[in-house]
């Protein structure tokens, strides 16, 4: 007796449990059916072609013949919904399952990354672009806080490593003139960045990546050091107020990581050794320094990391 009870209970469980997830799915389908009931006409009325969504087949009236990928208000005939025909029920179930899959696909999906109230860290390296005689490699980083999804404020800076080009040597050899050069030491700025453009691109029509273009502005300081033409003179340093303007782009890899690049112009009034080379020592040279307005254009590339590394949408899809 006990054995019979156990077996009957087991049979009951195995035959009824699979229906639970199916019922859940069909419950979602019930949502679909409710939407169709909201928009469809009564069963005897056939809606005009122009009222149907682009992916529906206005000619389909037989639920059994309906393409699983389409919706047809006429197929929700109440008589068909209560028909005891297993074949019709099974086909309708397949149609509803298929419709539930496609309904999850939105025409305009959500942005991959939301940035508001998140912190961004950007380690980068750079190279100066616009000086023929001395090139600088820059290593640094930027820290920013996003007040909104488009605008951030932050602080950034980098150190420079100088590298005199061949042209600096050849200018002396060929034109018999010795250029006066300054080496950049560091730059530090307070920045405001604004994401002006946002878009997507498909790589080989398979992988979709999202990207944005930002504009940047800032104020800070740049330290420079003269490279004395007389090797016996000690170099002296300047600290120059710097205005930064620039633009850049980022490509979103996932919710917390992007590839980042930009071109920034650090503008300042710098002091150079005077071209009149009669100064007896560095101190006199510094007093007679010649001021020049400088555009220091730097190409920067790096990765940006967002914290917290994840986020949740608070609105419905």
């Amino acid at each position, binding site marked *: 007796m006990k*054995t019979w009870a156990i077996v009957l209970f087991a049979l009951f469980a195995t*035959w009824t449990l*699979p229906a639970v997830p199916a019922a859940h799915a069909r419950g979602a389908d019930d949502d679909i059916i409710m939407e169709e009931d909201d928009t469809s006409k009564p069963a005897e009325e056939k809606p005009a072609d122009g009222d149907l969504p682009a992916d529906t087949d206005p000619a389909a009236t037989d639920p059994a013949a309906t393409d699983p990928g389409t919706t047809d208000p006429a197929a929700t005939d109440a008589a068909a919904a209560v028909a005891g025909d297993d074949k019709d029920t099974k086909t309708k179930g397949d149609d509803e399952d298929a419709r539930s*899959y496609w309904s999850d696909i939105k025409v305009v999906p959500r942005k991959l990354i939301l940035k508001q109230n998140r912190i961004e860290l950007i380690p980068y390296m750079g190279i100066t672009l616009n000086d023929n005689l001395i090139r600088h490699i820059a290593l640094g980083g930027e820290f920013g806080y996003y007040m909104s999804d488009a605008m951030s404020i932050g602080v950034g800076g980098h150190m420079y490593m100088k590298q005199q080009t061949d042209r600096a040597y050849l200018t002396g050899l060929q034109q018999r003139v010795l250029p006066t050069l300054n080496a950049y030491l560091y730059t530090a700025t307070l920045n405001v960045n604004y994401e002006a453009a*946002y*878009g997507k691109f498909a790589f080989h*029509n398979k992988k979709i990546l999202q990207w944005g273009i930002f504009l940047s502005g800032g104020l800070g300081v740049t330290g420079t050091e003269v490279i004395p033409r007389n090797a016996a003179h000690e170099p002296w340093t300047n600290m120059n107020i710097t205005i930064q303007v620039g633009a850049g782009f980022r490509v979103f890899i996932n919710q917390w990581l992007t590839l980042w690049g930009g071109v920034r112009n650090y503008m300042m009034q710098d002091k150079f050794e005077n071209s009149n080379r009669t100064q007896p020592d560095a101190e006199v040279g510094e007093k007679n320094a010649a001021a020049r307005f400088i555009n220091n254009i730097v190409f920067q590339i790096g990765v940006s990391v967002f914290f917290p590394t994840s986020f949740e949408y608070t609105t419905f899809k």
Partner: protein
Amino acid sequence: MKKLLHFLLFVSILGTSVSSFAVERGDPLKGQPAVRKRVLYLPGRFEVTPSVGVSFLQDYRHSFLVGAKAEYHLNDYLSFGFAAHFSPLSINTGLTDEIQATLPNQLEDDTWVNPTPSKNAMMDALNEIKLVMGPHITYTPAFGKMGLFSTIFFNFDVYFFGGLGIVMFEAGDLSPYTDTPAEYRQAVTAGTAGQKLHIIVEEENGGLRFGPQAGLGFHFYLNSWMAVNMEFRWMYVKRNAAGFDRNGDRIYELIEAEGMVRDWVVVNAKDESWENTMFFHFGLSMFFPQFAPRSN
């Protein structure tokens, strides 16, 4: 009886597994293209792009360019073409102006002691870019859509290209400012020696130069057959931009009238070096036929 019960239990469990599998959802997008019904701007179309351009990262002269590019797109990703641009105008760089400001107005009387070139000698020795051209193959891996200030929306694609770069330089001319050993002997004899640089130009710094070229560009589509085209082009060619000697090679001549051996610096192809030459082009791409189909 027990066997029958066990058999029924087994069949029920088996049926449960099958039903569970049937409830799993598949992804209808798996294996599908990322974008459907997109405008096929490229496949099987011929592109003509008139454009203007400018060189940058140059030492002495920036050249402004006018020309065009012709390209045939085999499919969505690959194309081949040829671009040619002529430079009607060049301007000094900041470095050139700085150097000129420090040079004397004319050559020294005794250029054996002070061979500093004059302002005009320095300028006339420079070579200038006159023609930039070359065949290339283009790879267009990505296309997309973007919104500018959430107001203007347009399609775009990005491409990379590489090929053979050909640059024609207009040679500098140092002849008004230099003398050869024979000319110097005559001048010494005539008592008019002086104010000449002692340089022998065996090979001028002009002519065609060949090297690799590469770059990347963007099309921003205005409609189905026109697009704004922006392109960065890099070429690596050998040149002697300044027109003077750089390796110190020279020849020695006995000047009998002075009883001294003098040396003349030699300028030739050995004074050339490989240099990066970069350009930015901005143009309007036109595609033919003008009709662009849509994908499935």
